[in-house]
């Protein structure tokens, strides 16, 4: 196979670019621990509201100072609809659905997760900027998909 010099330069350049992409990606994965939310935990979607893991939704502060938020994404609302968390501390959201697929996206942050019935989604982040954030469902869930929204209030640390 005849490969011209310019072609070879281009091929090596392309390969290097891809290696650079993957290299930076692996560096952020293993160096900074940036991974997509990939929690593996199942739950019976028909018994979500009586399951001890989701019977009480809301915010709890754990002894180590980290924050845990338990929420439901359902047709067509988030429960609780308003979530208050402190700034500057790791916050872990645990979300599931009793009905169809939903999304859990906090606009202006890196919180973005699919919520599937039968599974528990878990995503952890730290909010640095106090303020009010919009939570939206970003996976089509029926006629009220576009009104499925909630509010996150990040409070300045006292």
């Amino acid at each position, binding site marked *: 196979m005849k490969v011209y010099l310019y072609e070879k330069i281009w091929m090596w350049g392309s390969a290097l670019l891809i290696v650079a*992409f*993957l290299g930076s*990606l692996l560096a952020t994965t293993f160096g900074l621990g940036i991974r997509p939310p990939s929690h593996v935990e199942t739950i019976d979607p028909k018994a979500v509201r009586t399951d001890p893991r989701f019977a009480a939704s809301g915010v709890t502060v754990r002894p180590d100072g980290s924050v845990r938020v338990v929420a439901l994404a359902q047709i067509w609302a988030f429960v609780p609809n308003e979530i208050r968390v402190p700034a500057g501390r790791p916050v872990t959201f645990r979300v599931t659905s009793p009905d169809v697929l939903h999304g859990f996206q906090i606009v202006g942050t890196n919180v973005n997760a699919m919520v599937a019935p039968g599974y528990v989604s878990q995503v952890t982040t730290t909010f640095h900027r106090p303020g009010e954030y*919009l939570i939206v469902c970003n996976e089509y869930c029926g006629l009220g998909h*576009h009104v499925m929204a909630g509010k996150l209030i990040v409070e300045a640390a006292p």
Partner: protein
Amino acid sequence: MNRAQRLPLAHLWVAFAAFGLASLMAVMQAMSRAEVQLPARTAAIYYLSVTAHGVLTALVFTTFFIMGFGYVIARTALRRPLVGEGVAWASFWIALIGTLLATLVIVLGKASVLYTFYPPLQAHPGFYIGAALLVIGSWGWCWVMVRTYRAWRRDNSGAPAPLAMHGLLATVIVWILATIGVAIEVVVLLIPWSLGITKTVDPILARALFWWFGHPLVYFWLLPAYVAWYTILPREAGGKLFSDPLARVVFVLFIVLSTPVGFHHQFMDPGIPAGWKLFHTVNTFAILFPSFLTAFTVIASLEVAGRMRGGRGLFGWLGKLPWGEPLFTSVVLAMTIFAVGGFSGAVNAGYGMNAMVHNTAWVQGHFHLTVGSAVALTFMGLTYWLLPRLLGRELKFPAFAQVQPWLWFVGMMFFAVANHVTGLLGMPRRVYDPAYFGAAAARAWAPWTAVSAAGGVILFVSAMSFLLVAVGTALWGKRMASPPEIAYAEPLEPVPPRRSLWDRFGLWTVLAVLLVLIAYGLPLFGLLRLERFGSPGFKPF
């Protein structure tokens, strides 16, 4: 028009009808998201139309166009009649009946589940059965393509397939590998569930099977466009193909790498371990490579053409290219847009970065640059090239055919750039109305959704111009005594007479199957071993 042309033409007309209906849906949606109060604007109609638009463009327009184009390639590149023309017609009718059934159910509002049809949203069984028939019809097409190639190979022992057929065979293999996933999803999980035979479906398993299909689907669209870029564009530009062997390598790499990449659509999903998502990420970045090679070869071929036409200097050859030719303009603009779409695609595939864009308007911006332009605009250009050759008629309204690709380009720039921006600002995709009760974050989207709607209107004008030319040519195009022939670009260097490693489809298919078994077999096995709870169906539409 002789009898042999009827088969591809029948496919093309179904494709164009789907495209026309989908365009009407699209302009309504772009305006709805900009909060323009159209008459009869309701959420039910919006989500119905998003479903129809997705199914008619992503599944019907593309599949029928590719089947028709594939038959043209098989007959003209191999210079022999198709083997199994009866099977081809039967497949056409099966696919058409499936399409009509699914479309009817969607229009009746019984299947507003979007083209991704994720359970536990449950459509009317007619939707799944229609989709299955479309896929079964396409398998008939695969059978005819492979049989025709094998008959040719018997008579041309040792010779490599002409490049255009090489690319179409790669398309066929990618399609078969891809559709296994969706066939399992639809036939085993969804049809019995929608008929009430089974009670529940696991939504994550269904999504994994869908994206086993959903990403190689992208290459099923793209590879025929690449065939046009490699084998038709250089000749129409007045030049030669820069490298035939590297083009073969490109198609083979797509056979191997197309399928084990689907988890990059499920980065944000629970239930799938991060390690498997990373494995699919690496494969996804690897598949950038053949597209980089394509960019070089196609641009080099255009330079060859420009210089053969007397172009001088570093860029002087560009001006010598036939910018008035609709095929040329369409394809070059399609490739230009694809370069931008490739960039946003690399962001989508970026494992951690995906959290910023997943399920936002960014994604719809991205795939309108790729399938909605790189592929669709190439197919429109191909139509301007194919119709006179198949119908034996001159192109009607050629001025429209010349302006239409530019309109598409401009409209898509408005539409897609605006969607990328609103996506980064956090606007979800597929929302009927993005007002969110006046939330501050949502107010920032409004200027951009207006730009997107303006783009949508321009795209609609472009789509209608395209259909006007196509229908006009069929009805009123001047008959030609001797229509131009369907011929393919010569390579700069002669093709070696013997088949090489890159022509051994069986070998590469085995490798591809092994990769799929690793990439899907192991994680799906892990998923099946969990204590899983299925979901009953919901119809909130």
